[in-house]
């Protein structure tokens, strides 16, 4: 139990640092900006209580907001992300499988499931984030282009990180 907490704590700090000091400065043609930090919410264990899940998502959002100078924006998107996560997992995963599948990682759940999972959640998060940030419909076309390209970038980074840790576990 304490191991799970430590792992998630380290993951939280690492992802926020990565997002704030590296990925914040990356953008391809001003269209594609990765928001990898949401991987933290994606990788929380299956059996986490809903209260804790929402609280953690909210705190993660606020932390990133503090660095991005946009209080509430990322927090709102992260809470939505947590809600979509609850729905998605309740639809696709059977409850009795929880004992041997502690975390929804790439190495445990398989490539196809994880890809759908990451793609759906990322799309929801980015859609909400970009539209809330712009807050007008006149630029919808442009926002959608940004949404799709950024989602592709984010999911790509998620898969890369998943594969990195996939190898490590097998070697053990």
């Amino acid at each position: 139990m304490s191991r799970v907490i430590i792992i998630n704590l380290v993951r939280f700090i690492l992802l926020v640092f990565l997002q704030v000091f590296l990925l914040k400065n990356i953008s391809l043609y001003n269209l594609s900006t990765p928001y990898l930090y949401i991987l933290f919410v994606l990788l929380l264990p299956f059996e986490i209580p809903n209260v804790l899940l929402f609280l953690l998502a909210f705190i993660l959002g606020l932390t990133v907001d503090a660095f991005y100078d946009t209080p509430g924006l990322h927090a709102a998107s992260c809470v939505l992300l947590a809600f979509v996560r609850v729905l998605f997992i309740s639809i696709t995963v059977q409850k009795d499988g929880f004992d041997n599948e502690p975390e929804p990682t790439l190495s445990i759940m398989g490539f196809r499931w994880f890809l759908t999972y990451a793609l759906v959640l990322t799309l929801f998060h980015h859609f909400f984030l970009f539209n809330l940030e712009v807050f007008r419909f006149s630029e919808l076309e442009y926002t959608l282009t940004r949404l799709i390209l950024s989602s592709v970038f984010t999911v790509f980074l998620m898969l890369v990180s998943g594969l990195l840790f996939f190898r490590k576990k097998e070697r053990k």
Partner: protein
Amino acid sequence: MRNLLIFITKYNAFFLFLIFEICSFVIYVKYNSFQKASFINSTNNVTGNLYDRADELKGYLTLREVNDNLIRENARLRNQLKSSLYIDTVSKKMVIDTNYKQQYEYISAKVINNSVNRRNNYITIDRGTNNGIAKGMGVTSDAGVVGKVIFVDKHMAIVQSLLHKDTRFSAMLAKNKEIGYLEWGEEMNPHKGLLIDVSNNAQPKVGELVVTSDLSLFPAGIPLGKVSSLNAKGGGFFLNMEVNLAVDFSKLQYVYVIVNRFAKEQAGLEAQEKKDE
């Protein structure tokens, strides 16, 4: 009552979602309209310190470029010095000119946090009320206009960059003084701006310099950019044109905050007027 409790526990995810979402929205809307939620931004101690550290590291990587910029700026300032001396000695009638020089004071500041790739971009600088910075002051760099101060703390301030959907500066064409507004275009290109609402008599040319007008919070004549294309989209009765911005926002490191001395005097006068009433 019992059924209600069962209902709520059964769909607890949805209710939790509602609670936290509403919290986030309250924070978001509050900050956007009043800049009140000041504790969650990059001027607070923790994030400000971290940004400071990261920026120190970054500073070393760009020393050469900064040096080049400083040399260029030194050269420019020296030129100005000579020319102003020349004007002073030749004709002492230019009273207005000398007054102008006293009106504005420049405070140098270092950029410690910056972004160009979002719809609304902000810049954090390492000077605050302790150094005499107040809300609403203009900010420029060696190349041209950067933005205006929207939030000040003791040691830091946040600048609303020109790359922001709400930023609008009064501008004019340098040659024929036709006035318009400069704002950021919808394509979110950090090198392009739009000059809008210019009178139809203007007859602008590609490559013409666009500078701040007398109506802006900057001294008149600070460069904003150069006209790059005359047929910008949109535009009703007046001329719109695309402008290549003078400042490269992605490489911004040092800026100047402009203090308008007459602004204090003006505010003081107005306060006195109110007292008399």
